[in-house]
């Protein structure tokens, strides 16, 4: 029997009221998250990836509004199955039942997401005590020590009495992860959790998140701007551009058989580790201004593959396989045959070949 997804976002549209106009940040996106899987949402700054997840928890600023859309979340409370639309239920309901308890967020910058005046132990315990996950403080301390051990912090007895500034960047991010896990959430949203960290710490944190998922079965939404980072963690990938999802599929489909020119651009702007002299292809220009969203395909203005129709009408999602979809007119049966940049194709072939050898 097929299980229903734990989180299902449908036709979401969000806009922000600004002094000089309305900014249409999210323009009709839909996605879902299955139990226990990792979905990576990839896009550059301003593509709307953070706003999407913030809206799920009712965390968008006051000048922002969800215009259309629903976000179904399915969870169990006292053994009863509950299905709610997170966008319709009030902030009190979210605060009492969902935030931290069922859906938790890890933010990008561990220094600003921790309270500098509070010992880290207390910060981890706060959520547990609030949501009555533990009977008393003593039990909370015990659970906190377990959590710190789970996220790989040595000497937890000493650490819970320390303040955030006494910890290194990597340690702080581990504490933030421990806070997120404190109430055993069903969904964990990781909003660029490694962008502020360097390579070694980054790979440690990624391994940690994967490891925790194996142990607890939590479903993860992983937000990032770097496709190179998530190859290891993602089961599925959704690529966002200018408030829309332009391509979505299983990780292997996105990395080995990308179909949208924007995904091509993202993949080719990562320098490869094998050939030094090949050129990295950059995506020219900058993302469009969404106060007056461009007509048609927003990426057409930066794409060398753009056709006349791209400037007229936004392409629908074309289906490539059961799980792989992309919004590009290039996939229309009448479109000229265009393939990805040869540099990228060569690199993917090399990866595949190496995969076969192993």
């Amino acid at each position, binding site marked *: 029997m097929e299980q229903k997804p734990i989180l299902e976002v449908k036709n979401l549209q969000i806009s922000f009221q600004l002094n000089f106009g309305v900014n249409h940040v999210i323009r009709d996106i839909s996605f879902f998250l299955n139990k226990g899987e990792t979905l990576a949402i990839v896009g*550059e700054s301003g593509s709307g990836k953070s706003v999407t997840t913030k809206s799920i928890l009712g965390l968008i600023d006051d000048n922002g509004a969800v215009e259309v859309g629903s976000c179904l979340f399915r969870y169990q409370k006292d053994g009863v199955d509950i299905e709610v639309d997170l966008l319709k239920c009030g902030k009190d309901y979210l605060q009492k039942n969902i935030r931290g308890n069922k859906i938790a967020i890890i933010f990008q910058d561990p220094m600003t997401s921790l309270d500098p005046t509070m010992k880290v132990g207390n910060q981890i315990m706060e959520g547990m005590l609030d949501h009555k996950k533990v009977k008393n403080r003593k039990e909370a301390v015990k659970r906190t020590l377990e959590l710190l051990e789970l996220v790989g912090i040595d000497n937890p007895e000493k650490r819970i009495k320390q303040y955030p500034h006494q910890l290194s960047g990597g340690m702080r991010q581990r504490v933030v992860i421990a806070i997120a896990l404190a109430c055993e959430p069903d969904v964990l949203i990781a909003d660029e959790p490694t962008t502020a960290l360097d390579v070694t710490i980054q*790979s440690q944190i990624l391994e940690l998140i994967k490891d925790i998922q194996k142990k607890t079965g939590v479903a993860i939404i992983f937000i990032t701007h770097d*496709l190179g980072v998530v190859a290891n963690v993602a089961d599925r990938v959704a690529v966002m551009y200018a408030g829309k999802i332009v391509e979505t599929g299983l990780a292997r489909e996105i990395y080995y058989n990308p179909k949208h020119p924007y995904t091509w651009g993202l993949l080719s*702007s990562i*320098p490869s580790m094998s050939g030094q002299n090949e050129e990295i292809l950059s995506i020219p220009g*900058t993302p469009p201004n969404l106060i007056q969203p461009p007509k048609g395909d927003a990426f057409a203005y930066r794409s060398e593959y753009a056709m006349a129709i791209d400037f007229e009408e936004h392409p629908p999602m074309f289906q490539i396989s059961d799980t792989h979809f992309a919004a590009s007119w290039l996939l229309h049966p009448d479109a000229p045959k265009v393939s990805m940049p040869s540099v990228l194709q060569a690199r993917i072939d090399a*990866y595949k070949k190496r995969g076969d050898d192993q």
Partner: protein
Amino acid sequence: MRNVILQVDNLKQYFRIDRHTTTRAVDNVSFKVYEGEIFSVVGESGSGKSTLGRSLIRIYDANAGEVTFLGKKITGKLNSETTRFLRKNMQMIFQDPMASLNPRKKVLDTVAFGLDVAKEVKTKEERKQRVIEVLKSVGLSEDHIARYPHMFSGGQRQRIGVARALVMDPKFIIADEIISALDVSIQAQVINLMRKIQKEKGLTLMFIAHDLSMVRYISDRVAVMHLGHIVEMGTVEDIYEHPLHPYTKSLLSAIPHPDPDSEKLRKRVLYHKQNIDYNHGQIQSLNDTHTVLATKEELDAWQKGDYSDILVQM
């Protein structure tokens, strides 16, 4: 024989925290940079790579050591002539393009500031021409000169930072993490721009970064820094194809690739620093270009592939 543009000998930069503790941010570092090359310094945060760049350009006063730049000594007390020489020929681009640009100054004045200080231009018109010229070379246009930094995107702001460094027509540029605050697609733009400018003007570039894949792509030679020491130095091939120092190996094993199948198999190696004391090591030459910081015993063991106690497979 290539010309040495910058020679650093036993540079030390210490910071006194309190009576008991001193941070040795840069500890006994020596290296040469050749004219026209791209020399990269990589390392994790706290390794001292940014401090090194800042000491070279005299944002900090080094505690000990000697730096020779284009044949002139630029450590210790400088007379005004040497200072002017240094300011004209060595420039720096900073990491955060928003924080390093004055929000209340127009692009014209920000970029022209170096010219004003050095009294390089005589007339307003010449000043404007110089700025427009340099803005065009970094892919911005003439209309941009009257705008303020907040009116630009991140990538464009970083281009202004590049323009500000270029306007003095320097011989040597220190680029300190210039792409880490940018989106991936914009990173590639800025990197391609730096390569283009470097080729056209024959500049020498010192590129400070923690992104190892970008460093491999852009550099001629690489120095790996850890805890204030350069632990390994060599050409891109030396470092990426034949790394010897365990720290370099662990860094390389942590690079993520956009390749899900091989990522599933990737084994990271953990580095146990407590079993090495960098202060005991000497610079050992492996070939003409490749050096590593190690004691004789360590070098022997590593060359045999013996990394027990230091590298642990995950």
